[in-house]
């Protein structure tokens, strides 16, 4: 390769980021690597354009796009560009791509955040797919079995780690689903401040769905005394709203450190085991 000085070759000597390549750069291996990756990129691009073309029954459930973040200026009908259209495309494409899930309310908020961050329809789609198809258990499928299971799992974890709160819930007959279903379904969107949510998501993408339990347990354990002040059912529900507000959750840096210390050890083995038993329990309840 060395010694060729024409413009085309020079272009290869500078990588896409602007760095000059060293003389001993291994073009052959790089070429081999990149041609494999190009196949992936091309496949994704083709898939994406196909998904956008075919529109189906998902569209019907998406008629009210104006109900995603009505308080966000970029999602207003008058915004230019109006992200409602982007959101619509991502959700229709996803419904096509993952027919078993289709569209479930809650996904609109998640896709909406991804769009706000990536500012890119296609990237948002693939990130949504990573979350729903791989990282999260089946929260959004019609039976919502994963959601119901994880709510129970959280209940069990609270029993282990914050027993007084578990006892309070039991005494007043407050089902976990009442206070935490939105935590799971919306991955803390509209529950915690935006920055905090994004920091949580970073961990979620890296470490998996266990992070949701860490966050939930931290919120509960940190506010244990406050929650225990509750004397009745609506009081408890209200406390669970209150604990997601304030400095503790706004200070996202310290909050993120807390989620790894406050709940104590939380092995994936424990979670897997609890998921298994809770799943059985949920299934037996019909």
């Amino acid at each position, binding site marked *: 390769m060395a010694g060729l000085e024409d413009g085309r070759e020079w272009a290869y000597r500078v990588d896409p980021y602007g760095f000059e390549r060293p003389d001993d750069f291994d073009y052959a291996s790089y070429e081999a690597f990149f041609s494999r990756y190009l196949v992936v990129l091309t496949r994704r691009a083709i898939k994406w354009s196909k998904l956008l073309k075919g529109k189906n029954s998902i569209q019907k459930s998406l008629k009210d796009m104006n109900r995603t973040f009505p308080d966000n200026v970029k999602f207003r009908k008058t915004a230019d560009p109006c992200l409602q259209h982007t959101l619509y495309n991502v959700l229709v494409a996803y419904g096509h791509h993952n027919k078993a899930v289709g569209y479930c*309310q809650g996904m609109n*908020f998640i896709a909406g955040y991804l769009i706000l961050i990536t500012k890119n329809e296609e990237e948002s789609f693939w990130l949504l797919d990573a979350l729903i198809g791989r990282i999260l258990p089946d929260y959004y499928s019609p039976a919502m079995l994963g959601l119901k299971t994880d709510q129970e799992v959280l209940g069990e974890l609270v029993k282990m780690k914050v027993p007084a709160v578990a006892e309070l819930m039991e005494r007043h007959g407050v089902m976990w689903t009442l206070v935490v279903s939105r935590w799971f379904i919306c991955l803390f969107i509209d529950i915690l401040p935006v920055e905090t949510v994004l920091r949580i998501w970073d961990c979620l993408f890296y470490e998996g769905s266990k992070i949701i339990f860490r966050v939930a347990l931290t919120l509960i354990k940190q506010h244990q005394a406050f929650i225990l002040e509750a004397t009745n059912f609506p009081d408890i529900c*209200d406390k669970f709203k*209150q604990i997601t507000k304030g400095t503790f959750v706004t200070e996202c840096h310290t909050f993120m450190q807390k989620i790894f210390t406050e709940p104590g050890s939380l092995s994936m083995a424990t979670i897997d085991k609890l998921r298994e038993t809770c799943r059985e329990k949920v299934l037996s309840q019909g």
Partner: protein
Amino acid sequence: MSQAAMSETYDFLFKFLVIGNAGTGKSCLLHQFIEKKFKDDSNHTIGVEFGSKIINVGGKYVKLQIWDTAGQERFRSVTRSYYRGAAGALLVYDITSRETYNALTNWLTDARMLASQNIVIILCGNKKDLDADREVTFLEASRFAQENGKRIRSRKNGLRYSVWRCCLETAEITTKSTSTKCSGMWVLKKQNTTSNIFTLDTEAVRANGV
């Protein structure tokens, strides 16, 4: 918050559900009741949201604890667990959507099966301001209500309040049958009054055949 909750006093506490298909305006009705304001667009309700208010019905203070549920079909299996102990339900459909009207039977079955056979139901045809796009006639809904033992109210955009008046009426009906049998009701001691009260300014109309 808890301080305020402590000073709240009431004679009765009723659990009320707001149920019906997605996009029929359930959260908007709740917002209307709590804030007395109309809300154009609101985020989809995921799971359940709560609202409560103390009202004066026939000299008794009644606290309505309202459970606003998610309407999407697949959430139904989750929201079904919220019905237990409800004294009443506001069953909402959208007059511009036949689909939401057709779903009423299912919602009604759920409510009667999961809450109580005696649950007080108010059927509410919402979005009357979009009368031009109406798909369900008043007569039709009225007939449905009669067949299913309810009376009907239609909501004018300017008179959203009247829906909640229905609730007050319902609350009154339930108050009357206090001592007998209403599952979602707790009789509580009244200590003192608070300012968070408004009074019913019309004669309460009885719902028949509840």
